[in-house]
């Protein structure tokens, strides 16, 4: 690549690029503008945008703080050689839709499209041709983008925390660190895709099975008239007194407690239920069987002996499914009810009592006006079924 092409790829003038080389902030440049050298120059450009001086960047380069940037050479940047109309010709997708897809995927940083972009759009066009409705495809794209972004972010952060920082603390030379990180990433990279593929297939099989069961069991129920709405059992669980625990025992201990809590939730859930998201110490769970999810909540509380004890609320109703998450009034009710519970309790609403039958015990404890809701909501305390109620 010529100096002019390199400068365009980095987004600076040729004079700036020359000056950076003279000041040794692009040590990968050995007379030729290789992808590695351009990757490093891009890093310098980003640091400059964030206000760091060339002297700061030079010091960071010398002590190895930028060593991870060398890994960028494994991801050779492609030139955006295709226009929107090229992509439309190649895929049959509308230009406006292509722009929307690229934005949703988080890939809309350059004006043109690369070969890889085009390949991705061909896959999407094939999925649409196969018959998946556009709305579903757009939602799926958003879920893919969010999930993969989270994976990539975790990969980078974990290598940084567990490999790069220990190398820096050990006093390794910058070049040695860069070599080690590049070698490690070269070894790990080919493993990530097959691992994700295998995990995806296995989880897909599991959720297809759950969907089939859910369909069979709900066929007698009144269908919702709105696409994307489904009747689900929604549970929220969090740890009572978590903020105080963080203050008293420190963030690391509190984080450890949360990790054990969310893992305990995941491994004990009934087959039809899954963790939708976690926010701090709060876990949102959705399942198709309200009786099973409520019984799980009651049984889960019986397995808890240490403080902070969980608080759990379970509700049953129609929720709007969008982008891998559930929304709507009924979700809000479940979230509000958990705020009313104390550690060790499972609070539920009337639809849960009616769907669960006599296998658990329910005590009506209040009729409350939940924050943001006009009408009253009945709240029941759920306990194990049978004679003993200890």
């Amino acid at each position, binding site marked *: 690549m010529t100096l002019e092409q390199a400068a365009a790829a980095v987004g600076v003038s040729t004079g700036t690029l020359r000056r950076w080389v003279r000041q040794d902030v692009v040590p990968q440049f050995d007379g030729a503008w290789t992808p590695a050298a351009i990757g490093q120059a891009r890093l310098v450009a980003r640091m400059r945008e964030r206000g760091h001086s060339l002297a700061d960047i030079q010091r960071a380069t010398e002590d190895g703080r930028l060593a991870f940037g060398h890994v960028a050479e494994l991801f050779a940047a492609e030139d955006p050689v295709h226009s929107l109309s090229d992509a439309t010709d190649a895929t049959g997708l509308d230009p406006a839709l292509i722009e929307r897809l690229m934005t949703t995927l988080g890939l809309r940083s350059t004006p043109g499209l690369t070969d890889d972009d085009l390949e991705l759009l061909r896959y999407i066009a094939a999925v649409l041709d196969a018959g998946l409705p556009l709305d579903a495809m757009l939602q799926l794209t958003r879920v893919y983008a969010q999930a993969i972004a989270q994976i990539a972010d975790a990969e980078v952060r974990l290598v940084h925390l567990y490999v790069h920082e220990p190398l820096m603390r050990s006093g390794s030379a910058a070049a040695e660190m860069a070599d080690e990180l590049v070698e490690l990433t070269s070894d790990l990279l080919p493993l990530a895709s097959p691992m994700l593929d295998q995990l995806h297939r296995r989880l897909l099989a599991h959720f297809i099975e759950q969907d089939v069961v859910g369909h069979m069991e709900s066929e007698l129920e009144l269908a919702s008239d709105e696409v994307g709405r489904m009747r689900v059992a929604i549970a929220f669980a969090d740890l009572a007194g978590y903020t105080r625990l963080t203050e008293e025992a420190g963030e690391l201990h509190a984080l450890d407690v949360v990790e054990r809590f969310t893992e305990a939730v995941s491994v004990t859930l009934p087959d039809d239920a899954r963790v939708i998201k976690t926010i701090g110490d709060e876990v949102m769970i959705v399942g198709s069987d309200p009786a099973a999810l409520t019984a799980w909540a009651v*049984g889960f509380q019986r397995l808890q002996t240490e403080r902070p004890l969980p608080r759990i609320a379970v509700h049953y109703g129609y929720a709007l499914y969008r982008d891998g998450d559930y929304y709507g009034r009924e979700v809000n009710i479940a979230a509000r009810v958990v705020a009313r519970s104390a550690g060790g309790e499972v609070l539920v609403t009337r639809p849960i009592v009616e769907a669960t039958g006599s296998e*658990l015990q329910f005590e009506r404890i209040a009729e409350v006006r939940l924050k943001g809701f006009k009408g009253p909501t009945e709240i029941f305390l759920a306990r194990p079924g049978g004679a003993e109620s200890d």
Partner: protein
Amino acid sequence: MNRTFEIMSEDPETGPPLRAADTPQRFEFTDLDLVVNIRSGSDEEEPNLAWEWSDEVAWEPKVRLSMSSETANRYFQGKENMAIAIARRRIKAVGDVKAALTIIPLTKPVFARYRQMIADDYPHLEL
């Protein structure tokens, strides 16, 4: 159950983690009036798990689980959720029940081998 414990002890996915968990358990099968105490192997010479069909054992169980043999059969076939069974009183858990939470994921890999054993040798117990 002896064969099930043997599978759990010998299976490379379950045996070593269960040994490392070091959580002595007491199972009571209420309908059969049978009690089994199970613990981790005490040294490298022993199998991963050791058990005795008696309460006369030289160790104290950390967790006491009481259930019918039917519930145990459902559990080992992967068709009984521990938390739900506790709520519905099909399983009674006493003692360090938090430790039971650690054991649950460790036993899951054995379900497929248990189902195979039932299909091969005890088809009347298939669910």
